[in-house]
């Protein structure tokens, strides 16, 4: 089958890519658009390290054919959060020591961002439920959970809500 052209929004900018059928969103983001915060721990939907937001919803980009996002908005860590790490959620991850090797961190941040956007004051149980699809093999789940709680307390602009 011939390649097709797919157009979607990557953050605030429109992008156009030429892809073979069944190319995943992960492959396009990493290897055509340079969004290397999209990690590839398993490429089979098992680790969550490739999580991005499609129209604000967290999605494992390794399982999604890129045609599915035509006309939709895609956010990676690079487009969703500042490159100086000043977002309260990023700051909370740093302050709580919510990473060791850092490989799961982008995926953790993306699911946490989506959660806080929908539910600014989630319970600890809800946070744990939300993070359940993301593997941290350094087993730092407690500080990650604490970081999301701290970010919720701080609010989106760093102010208590």
């Amino acid at each position, binding site marked *: 089958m011939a390649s097709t052209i797919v157009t979607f929004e990557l953050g605030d900018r429109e992008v156009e890519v030429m892809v073979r059928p069944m190319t995943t969103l992960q492959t396009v983001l990493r290897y055509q658009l*340079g969004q290397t915060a999209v990690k590839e721990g398993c490429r089979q939907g098992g680790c969550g390290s490739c999580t991005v937001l499609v129209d604000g919803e967290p999605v494992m980009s390794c399982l999604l054919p890129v045609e599915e996002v035509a006309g939709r908005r895609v956010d990676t860590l690079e487009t969703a959060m500042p490159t100086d790490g000043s977002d309260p959620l*990023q700051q909370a991850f740093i302050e709580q020591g919510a990473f060791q090797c850092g*490989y799961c961190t982008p995926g953790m941040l993306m699911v946490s961002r989506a959660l806080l956007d929908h539910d600014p004051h989630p319970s600890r149980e809800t946070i744990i439920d939300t993070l359940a699809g993301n593997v941290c093999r350094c087993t730092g789940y407690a500080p990650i959970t604490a970081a999301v709680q701290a970010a919720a307390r701080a609010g989106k602009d760093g102010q208590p809500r």
Partner: protein
Amino acid sequence: MSPTHHVVGRSVARADGIGHVTGRTVFTTDRAFPGLLHLKVVRSPVHHARIRGVDLSEAERVPGFVRALTHADVPHNVYTILGLIGVEPEEEFVLAVDRVRYKGEPIVAIVAESEQAANDAVARVKLDLEELPAVFDVEEALKPGAPIVTHWGNNTFMYEGHPCRRVRFGDVEAAFARADHIVEGVYDTKPIEQAPTETTAAIAVPEANGRYTVYTNTQALYFSLDNTSIILQVPGNQLHFIGGTVGGGFGGKVDVIVEPLATLAAMKTNRPVRYAFSRSEEMQVSSTRSAWRIYVKDGVMADGRLIARKVTSYADSGAYSRQTPYALTKHAANAAGPYAIPNVSIDAYCVFTNRQPTSAMRGFGITMASFALEVQMDKIAEVVGLDPWSVRFINAYHNGDMKPHRKLVEDATLIETMQAAARLVGHELPEAFQAMTSDPRPDGGA
């Protein structure tokens, strides 16, 4: 004047924190290079076989196929990762020659324009294999008539001419004869895959000055550099290894696996080459923690004193050495536990089987001994009618004691650690144990 501390006693933000929370940390496969080729490996589908033939003709017709590498392309095809610290003989093949010894052993490497093309070509390589009997259990592997895995005629690593690492201290048999109780146990542990979230990967890039830059997520940059230099028979100064950013390792990235082939492929094609494990390769082919079987026999007096301990251990090295012979040496030095026992005998075997090779993982050689010995201590407590704390305080080693492998104890902390643990769990220790320290005994040793 007391010194001013800037770091001690404070929480310090990690230097790599901003990189991790912004996605700006550059992991190995985040790097892009124009003209990057992809390397994938044809692996043995069976546990043990003679290789009668390899047919590449269909693979070569896959669009995007660039070239294949076989054992004939590897300048020094046989190696042992720890060869540089005296672990010998060299015994693992970069690419198999005439035999495969485990399911997943590399036979041919395929280099292609895309990962998809490399995978397609790998799937089209035809292997003609004569399957051989295989062995998967450490004790089965030591029985007469077992399939022989190694090239030296038996299935154990040889330690200065002996089939096991041995420790002899005092006289265990005489002590068993006068002990009030004999407590025995056998402990089996399974292999464990380190399963780092980022899979093992390297990218080798030919430079204009004739050198090769090799980006790798190894945990052991200089093992990788040195072994690659030996395997490819090029001076170390032709290889520029860049590492340091590792997406989880836990011992799983200490072996030298992807760098030599990626670099060889870069040399042969004069293009950048990436060799990254898939998740299934990471789980099924990369080395795991060894499976262990540990037999313990203890001689104990009615008051809880351990007077003799005999340990016979078997670690399953899988088909090749990797770091396991070294693990057995560490194990033998620690297999009596952190206790003062006057009579100890240890035989620790590094056994070869047709399972995937095993290697480093967090405390390897020691962790499994601790599991066996601490379960054993609880059993002893039951037999002599003491609580589990008491048998450990009574037998704890002190500074100045001699360990069975003739090293003086200089850094004992067992007593203080147990005291702290008791405080944390709210367990009130008898005064005698609260007052104990790891300081040298007044009589100068056990």
